[in-house]
């Protein structure tokens, strides 16, 4: 039994013992669960039944026993509640002594055992978020109530039960909130947004359920924001199967995701979107691509996610698609303690073999046990030539680096026991969370509130993605023989992920001041193991040496730590409102003992094929097909923001004048250690890869096997960027229905590459980066106009300019093979992108939690950066590189609806709990591409561009996407069905259709059923995601689908559109085509399916218990 098993066992036993012991020892009548079936019978019968169920003995006189008609209400579940009911209704009293209970007549007026009250608290605000002091909160069932305080907050003490609250305020629409559950000793949070009554003094009531009120609050915020935004609340997130934010984002209008990790807003790819956590930017989690992987944030820590799509000058960070603002739970309005346990199974994972390299003892806990430590300090490069390094063909005397030195370095690096794929049994995913919230009021007369929220979570997931087809990058594009069904490139990607999360947020607020602290720590061990079996483009299948497919393995165990600490303040100083925050965000990722390995299949008598790991060749200068690597990335972001807003009135108009500034310092370093294993005989016969380390003593000159790092494989990058901004803006509310927010922002940006070196290949090591950013300060104007011709209806117009700055690593020469792309990913130097954004939106909020909206947007990108496939040497082997195009234009429409079905027929209460929701995004884009050329004049290189005449779609663009949802939110039962559809997407672009890769449309159907038990204390959820097992499918318009235009024959230097045209029946969309003949051989005439991945169906079950 492993140490992990022992630890888990110890933990579980301890937890079980504690939990069980609390029930056995206490004799607490509140803990004794009983169910009375003899209600209405004489008391003796009822007590006999209680005796049997509880183990307690009852003592009473015959007279008492004969008391007839003892009725027990159905909501009495504990012995305490039953006895309390009997005592009250029959004027009796009882006394407990150990396991004995004596029932006697009450001598005096019986004292009812007081039920411990629950509380309900929250804040009453108007539509603009301003507090409404003195609002009346009335409890319909009791007739009692209270009034809100100066800051709009209120607290009501109530006995446990289900209530309806009515909130009223002069000249506001009175609201009724039904199904508000009050639990004994607990506080139920409920903040309400009130709407101005446009019908004068005539009273209008709007009734909504508790859940709906929380969603309505989000919509109210959306309605009152100066900018265009869409969002999703904790309540809505809770009604989906989503475990992390990456899964949730695609539910928001105009937002889609790549691999459930990277966010695309309005079809604009991840590098044009900015993510903030509690208002502070998040670093890029991918070293080579500018994006944040949202799977790092569990949904259970999230309060809401709002995606802003237009810009105001006080927004410190430029974006083009959207600003994804994630807010974690902060100061609670009530105390809570909840425990959640969950498990899930995936149809393509559980019960199947699960491959990976040797695991560490603590992988399930998310930490390395030291088994991956093979990267000591002080390693020296071993160039393959004798005059600067070590040539195995030469004598020791001629080699600069001696055999003994190489052997000593091999010994320091260590053995190869961990290497080589193993098969494990895939386990169901498991997750646990403990969350606590406490709220304290430090004064009875003044507002002095203090509170904190803490959360600890653990999750382990194992996913086996089946790659049904891999024909990307260096892999063979087509089968060599169309009839050969075995000529397939397939594989799996195994993901083993352990996530530990901790959150501690707190705050203190008075009437005029508020200070909050946010602390988030996430530790992830993410081990992605990719194993692809197939034939390469260079060596297609044949009957000779390429009879059997080769195998490529990439094992990438990555340990990431994300720590964000932030303190923010808000102070009201007369008419001036001051806001400030200081934050530090640190990301550390260590990819430890990442291994790239190649296996060749040879045929011997009794093995066809016999697969063996191949070392690289000691005589070839490149890194080769077998290396073990370590990549350490550290990024620290320090930011500060300060703003002051002055409110004033001019006649009947109110205005806010705001000035402020921000500072963001990003510093990143990236160190890589790539240790190729090379040999003089690449195939080691019967020697297993685990034994290689035992044969690295360099004592057999005919068969050397050694680690051969090269200069560029022991290298680093370091960069720093400074972003400073200052703004001035005015927010004017004119004529009660017109709001104009506008201003200008000055932004200074400077990035310095402190150290940059290439990797992987001597070819790339010799490449130069071309950096063209020279303008450091930009002036960025913006204006947002909101016009409300009638209440609940907004017409919005917005214009803004923004800058997208290159990520720190985007100007690095670092090059690395990506198993996903099937080729290397590199940069050719990226400059800043300036974007002009135009937006128009019509939004209508017909009722609580209801929304109808339509948006038109247009964007102009100056020098957009895109991912290109680029065939530099025209060999058919292409790289993926990031570089700038000349310009791009993107325009489109967004529509959203969320509507209660109660209006269909009022006689069916069921319909009042049902909502339909949907959103649709339609857009188009065009890009002017350019080819970069270098000319040398008088020995000096200079860059010039040639521009392509024909336009194409922007990288990452999705022309059509929509979400549909049907939700039933009952008192106990909840059902939610959601369908997400994404149309064609430009995955990788290129100057030639034969290089542009698209993702085919995909729809995903998810469902959830939830049920509340034990008076709402426990909630059970069953989620099913990807019900139809929809695959991710990619394709390229193959050359067989188009032909040369006859009139272009003989004309040089033509663009694709001048040279070619699609054949009849083919277009840019996916057409599978038919089997035809080309060059005398059968061949598919149709689009080439480059990559197909199945992720399976996931069934998850969770239980949450609120103490």
């Amino acid at each position, binding site marked *: 039994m492993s140490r992990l*098993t022992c630890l888990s066992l110890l933990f579980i036993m301890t937890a079980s013992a504690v939990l069980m012991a609390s029930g056995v020892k206490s004799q607490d009548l509140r803990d004794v669960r009983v169910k009375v079936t003899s209600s209405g019978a004489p008391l003796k019968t009822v007590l006999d039944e209680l005796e049997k169920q509880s183990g307690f003995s009852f003592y009473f006189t015959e007279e008492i026993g004969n008391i007839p008609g003892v009725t027990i209400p159905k909501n009495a579940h504990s012995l305490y509640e039953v006895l309390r009911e009997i005592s009250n209704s029959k004027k009796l009293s009882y006394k407990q002594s150990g396991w004995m209970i004596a029932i006697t007549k009450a001598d005096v007026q019986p004292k009812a055992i007081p039920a411990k009250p629950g509380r309900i608290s929250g804040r009453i605000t108007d539509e603009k978020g301003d507090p409404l002091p003195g609002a009346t909160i009335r409890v319909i069932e009791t007739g009692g109530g209270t009034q809100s305080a100066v800051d709009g907050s209120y607290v009501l003490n109530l006995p446990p039960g289900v209530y309806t609250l009515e909130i009223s305020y002069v000249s506001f629409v009175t609201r009724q909130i039904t199904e508000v559950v009050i639990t004994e000793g607990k506080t139920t949070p409920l903040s309400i947004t009130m709407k101005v009554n446009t019908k004068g003094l005539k009273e209008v009531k709007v009734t909504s359920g508790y859940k709906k009120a929380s969603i309505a609050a989000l919509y109210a915020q959306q309605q009152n924001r100066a900018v265009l935004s869409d969002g999703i609340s904790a309540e809505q997130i809770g009604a989906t199967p989503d475990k992390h934010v990456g899964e949730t984002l695609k539910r928001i209008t105009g937002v889609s995701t790549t691999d459930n990790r990277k966010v695309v807003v309005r079809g604009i790819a991840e590098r044009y979107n900015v993510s903030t956590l509690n208002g502070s930017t998040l670093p890029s989690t991918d070293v080579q691509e500018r994006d944040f992987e949202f799977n790092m944030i569990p949904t259970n820590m999230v309060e809401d996610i709002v995606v802003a799509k237009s810009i105001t000058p006080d927004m410190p960070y430029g974006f083009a698609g959207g600003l994804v603002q994630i807010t974690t739970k902060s100061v609670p309005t009530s105390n809570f303690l909840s425990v959640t346990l969950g498990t899930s199974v995936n149809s393509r994972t559980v019960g199947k073999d699960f491959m990976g390299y040797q695991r560490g003892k603590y992988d399930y806990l998310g930490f390395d046990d030291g088994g991956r430590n093979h990267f000591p300090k002080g390693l020296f490069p071993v160039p393959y030539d004798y005059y600067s390094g070590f040539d195995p063909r030469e004598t020791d005397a001629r080699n600069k680096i001696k055999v003994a030195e190489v052997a000593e370095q091999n010994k320091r690096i260590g053995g190869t026991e961990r290497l*080589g794929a193993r098969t*494990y049994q895939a386990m169901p995913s498991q997750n646990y969370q403990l969350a606590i919230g406490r709220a304290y009021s430090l004064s009875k007369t003044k507002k002095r509130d203090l509170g904190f929220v803490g959360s600890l979570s653990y999750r382990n997931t194992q996913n086996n993605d089946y790659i049904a087809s891999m024909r990307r990058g260096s892999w063979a594009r087509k089968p060599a023989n169309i009839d050969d069904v075995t000529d397939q490139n397939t594989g799996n990607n195994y993901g083993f992920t352990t996530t530990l999360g901790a959150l501690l947020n707190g705050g203190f607020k008075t009437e005029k001041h508020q200070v909050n602290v946010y602390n988030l720590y996430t530790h992830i061990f993410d081990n992605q193991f990719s194993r692809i079996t197939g034939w390469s483009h260079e060596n297609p299948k044949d009957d000779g040496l390429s009879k059997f497919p080769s195998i490529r393995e990439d094992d990438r165990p990555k340990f990431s730590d994300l720590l964000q600490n932030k303190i923010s303040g808000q102070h009201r100083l007369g008419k001036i409102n001051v806001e400030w925050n200081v934050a530090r965000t640190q990301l550390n990722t260590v990819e430890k003992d990442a291994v790239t390995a190649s296996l060749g299949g040879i045929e011997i*008598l009794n093995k*066809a094929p016999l697969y063996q790991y191949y070392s690289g060749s000691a005589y070839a200068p490149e890194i080769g097909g077998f290396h073990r690597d370590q990549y350490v990335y550290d990024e620290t972001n320090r930011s500060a923001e300060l703003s002051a807003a002055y409110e004033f009135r001019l006649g009947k108009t109110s205005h806010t004048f705001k000035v402020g500034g921000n500072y963001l310092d990003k510093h990143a370093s990236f160190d890589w250690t790539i240790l190729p294993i090379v040999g003089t005989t690449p195939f080691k016969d019967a020697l297993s890869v685990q034994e290689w380390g035992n044969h690295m003593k360099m004592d057999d000159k005919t068969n050397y096997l050694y680690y051969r790092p090269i200069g560029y494989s022991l290298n680093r990058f370091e960069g720093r960027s400074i972003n400073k901004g200052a703004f001035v803006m005015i927010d004017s509310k004119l004529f009660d229905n017109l709001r104009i927010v506008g201003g200008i922002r000055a932004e200074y940006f400077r990035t310095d590459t402190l150290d940059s070196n290439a990797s992987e290949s001597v070819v790339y090591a010799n490449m130069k980066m071309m950096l063209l950013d020279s303008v450091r300060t930009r002036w960025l104007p913006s204006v947002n106009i909101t016009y409300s011709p009638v209440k609940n209806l907004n017409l919005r117009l917005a214009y803004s300019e923004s800058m997208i700055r290159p990520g720190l690593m985007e100007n690095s020469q670092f090059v690395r093979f990506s198993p996903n792309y099937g080729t290397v990913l590199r940069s050719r130097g990226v400059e800043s992108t300036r974007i002009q954004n135009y937006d128009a939106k019509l939004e209508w909020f017909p009722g609580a939690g209801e929304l109808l909206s339509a948006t038109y947007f247009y964007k102009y990108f100056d020098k957009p950066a895109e991912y290109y496939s680029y065939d530099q040497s025209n060999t058919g082997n292409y790289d993926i590189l990031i570089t700038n195009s000349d310009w791009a234009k993107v325009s489109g429409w967004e529509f959203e609806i969320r509507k209660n079905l109660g209006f269909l027929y009022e006689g069916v209460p069921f319909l009042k709990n049902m909502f339909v929701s949907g959103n649709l995004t339609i857009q188009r884009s065009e890009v002017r591409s350019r080819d970069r050329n270098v000319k040398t004049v008088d020995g000096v290189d200079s860059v010039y561009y040639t521009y392509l005449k024909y336009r194409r779609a922007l990288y990452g663009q999705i022309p059509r996407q929509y979400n549909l949802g049907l939700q039933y939110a009952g008192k106990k039962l909840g059902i939610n069905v959601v369908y997400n559809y994404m149309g064609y997407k430009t995955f990788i672009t290129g100057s030639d259709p034969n290089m542009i890769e698209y993702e085919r449309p995909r729809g995903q159907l998810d469902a959830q059923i939830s049920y509340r038990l034990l008076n709402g204390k426990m909630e059970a959820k069953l989620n099913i995601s990807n019900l139809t097992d929809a695959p991710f499918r990619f394709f390229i318009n193959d050359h067989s689908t188009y032909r040369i235009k006859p009139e272009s024959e003989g004309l040089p230097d033509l663009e694709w559109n001048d040279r070619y045209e699609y054949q009849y029946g083919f277009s840019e969309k996916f057409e599978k085509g038919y089997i035809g003949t080309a060059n005398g051989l059968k061949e598919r005439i149709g689009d080439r399916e480059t990559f197909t991945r199945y992720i399976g169906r996931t069934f998850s079950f969770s239980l949450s218990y609120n103490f």
Partner: protein
Amino acid sequence: MKKTINIVCLLILLLAAACKKEGDFVVKPLKAIEPVTFAGGYVLGDTLTLYFDGVKMRDYFGPIGSDWETTRIAFEEDRASMELKRKKTGETVYQKTFDIKDADNAIPKLYFDGAKMQPAYTYPTPQGAEYTANFYLDFPAGSGTADISLEMIEYRMDGNTPVILGVTSVPIASNIQPGKWTEYVTLPMMPTLPNTHPESGFAPYICVKKAGKNEYYVVNKDEEIFTTIERNSLQLQLPDEYTTNGLVQSYHLYGKTYSGISAVISNDLVRVFPK
């Protein structure tokens, strides 16, 4: 509630207990890779499937070459057991066990005649200067009987394109039944024919045709006539005026399709099993 918590704890316990650090190696470690001598052989009339330790390795039909891949044997355990089974019946027609300790692992030459394993293919000794040949037509049932004839094709070149001027056919064997060896037939001399055009030449082909018809045995769609002839021809040697020594040839004829193109494949078993 207590019961629920206990069940959940039990589930977690089971999950934790199932965690394994070591998995099973995907590429199994080998004890040794040893040389082996496999003399090759020939299979006709059925396909033989080679199994090692119950695992299917490859199919044999036609020539079994003593190729590089058959010169080594891997030992995961101390012993490796080989079996050759008929594809049609599953019957084991040959078996052998190899031991890691054996200094010399060898498989003799094998000949499967369609019914059982023989030590070698046997044929008569050539007589005088006579050329004789027999044939084994090994096509799927329903493919029909075949004739073999010498086709003397007279052609001239029109630019780079050959133009056929005429075909003279000399029968060699007729009505060959599939699934059995024919009797030996005496092969005719290569004829000398007069040219009908000053720039013409002759191309001789020994072709397989459908019995009693002027149709090639295997025809692919939209194919040049010369390509069709080549796909239906065999390298049968005919005597000529300079021939002094006799020759025996035994041709196994079967079909093969690759990338949608079919052709007749022919192998002379006399060369596979020289005396």
